[in-house]
């Protein structure tokens, strides 16, 4: 459904992504793990066109082209077929929880207002926040804001939802509620690509784990393989370090 080949990106002479290739199938729940600075977030941002890639190829939603040859129409197509959940939520601060979800439906998708509201309420129900629909983001806890962020993404019914460290900005006691929502999504067959430091999520919920370091995919495979029998030294070291810190 989504195939990325040889994706490259550098900032100010530093190579952040050094040729990333992977594919996402419908229904996949892929966790991307790896040390800070390994390019995980940049990977999501270049695929979703928030950053311009310096090289590589994408085939997705009817597009089959080099990143650098994407025109405005292609970029719109990509943006309209992905969902994105940000590390720091990025809810529209001047909109209520409900309006945060209806905004894209009404303005971008031209859905009728009444229909948009219906879809938004269903999405809020899935994240358990129907009673907060008229709250502004500043009136919600971090966990609630992130759940609205997830509802905003699922309401648009995208082909794949990218999660950029969705629990990293949360107080520890709020992480659980967000992971629970994500687990429900995964169980319902939503295609998800999740950059995460939550090793439990990677191990228990995803069907594939990608380990990235220094701008490369070091190895990928089933959670069982990556966590129990990693073939690369780099992966072993990362897992040992991170698990000994818990």
């Amino acid at each position: 459904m989504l195939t990325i080949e040889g994706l490259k990106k550098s900032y100010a002479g530093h190579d952040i992504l050094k040729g990333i290739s992977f594919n996402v199938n419908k229904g996949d729940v892929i966790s991307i793990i790896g040390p800070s600075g390994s390019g995980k977030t940049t990977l999501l941002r270049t695929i979703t066109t928030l950053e311009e890639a310096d090289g590589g190829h994408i085939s997705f939603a009817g597009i089959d082209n080099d990143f650098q040859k994407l025109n405005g129409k292609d970029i719109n197509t990509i943006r309209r077929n992905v969902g994105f959940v940000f590390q720091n939520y990025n809810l529209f601060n001047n909109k209520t929880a409900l309006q945060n979800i209806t905004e894209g439906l009404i303005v971008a998708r031209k859905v009728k207002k009444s229909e948009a509201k219906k879809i938004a309420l269903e999405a809020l129900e899935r994240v358990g926040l129907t009673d907060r629909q008229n709250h502004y983001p500043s009136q919600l806890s971090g966990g609630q804001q992130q759940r609205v962020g997830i509802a905003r993404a699922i309401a648009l019914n995208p082909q794949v939802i990218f999660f950029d460290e969705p629990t990293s900005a949360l107080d520890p006691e709020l992480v659980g509620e967000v992971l629970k929502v994500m687990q429900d999504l995964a169980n319902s067959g939503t295609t998800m690509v999740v950059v995460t430091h939550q090793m439990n999520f990677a191990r228990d919920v995803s069907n594939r784990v990608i380990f990235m370091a220094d701008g490369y995919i070091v190895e990928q495979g089933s959670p069982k393989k990556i966590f129990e029998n990693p073939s690369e030294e780099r992966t072993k070291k990362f897992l040992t370090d991170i698990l000994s810190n818990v």
Partner: protein
Amino acid sequence: MENIKLIVNFLGQLLPAINITLIVSLSSIILGSLLGLLLAAARLSQSVILRVLASIYVSVIRATPSIIMIFLVYYGMPLLFNGWFHTNIDGWNRMYFVIIALTLLFSAPVSEIMRSAYESISKGQMEAGLLVGMSPFQTFYRIILPQAFVVALPNFANSVVNLLKEGALTFTIGVVDMVAKAQMIVANNSGGYAWQTYCALALIYWVISLAIDKGVSLVEKSYQKKRKTIAV
């Protein structure tokens, strides 16, 4: 008591000239805001040339005292029009020159206010808009602008009050506004009752400024209601 009667009397004589002050101020605010918006856009643009030009403009204008700006426009513009466009604008209503001068003066601080308000809104708001499928313009108009507006409001109001006060220099090129009117009253009284006259004038400026402040704080409050944090 006598003085209060005099002041009230002078108020009655000065107020009819308030329309000149209001026309000059309102026109300069509207035109200056539009010019300020263009300048802010230029300072935020990708083009180095636009950015440099805009920032030179802003720093020069900010360093120009209002009275000098008014004289520059009043004496300089007719020469410029004559030389460049071979058009004679000597017959223009003098009010236009004041409006142009104040527009130029107002545009500089306003462009800075707009730019910093825009920059205070997190980049994530734009990114979130793009990734729910909205265009950059839709996101700017529906998400960024309303938030930047609230941020800019207090400083903007401050600049408006400043402009109003600088507008009191309108009389220097012979436009009969309230200040000119006050001078005439004093002259008619052979220099008598001067402080009562100017006291009346000051009162009018106070009321306008207070009204602006009050209006702005009402707008601000209605916006802050939305953002007030409720203990959850």
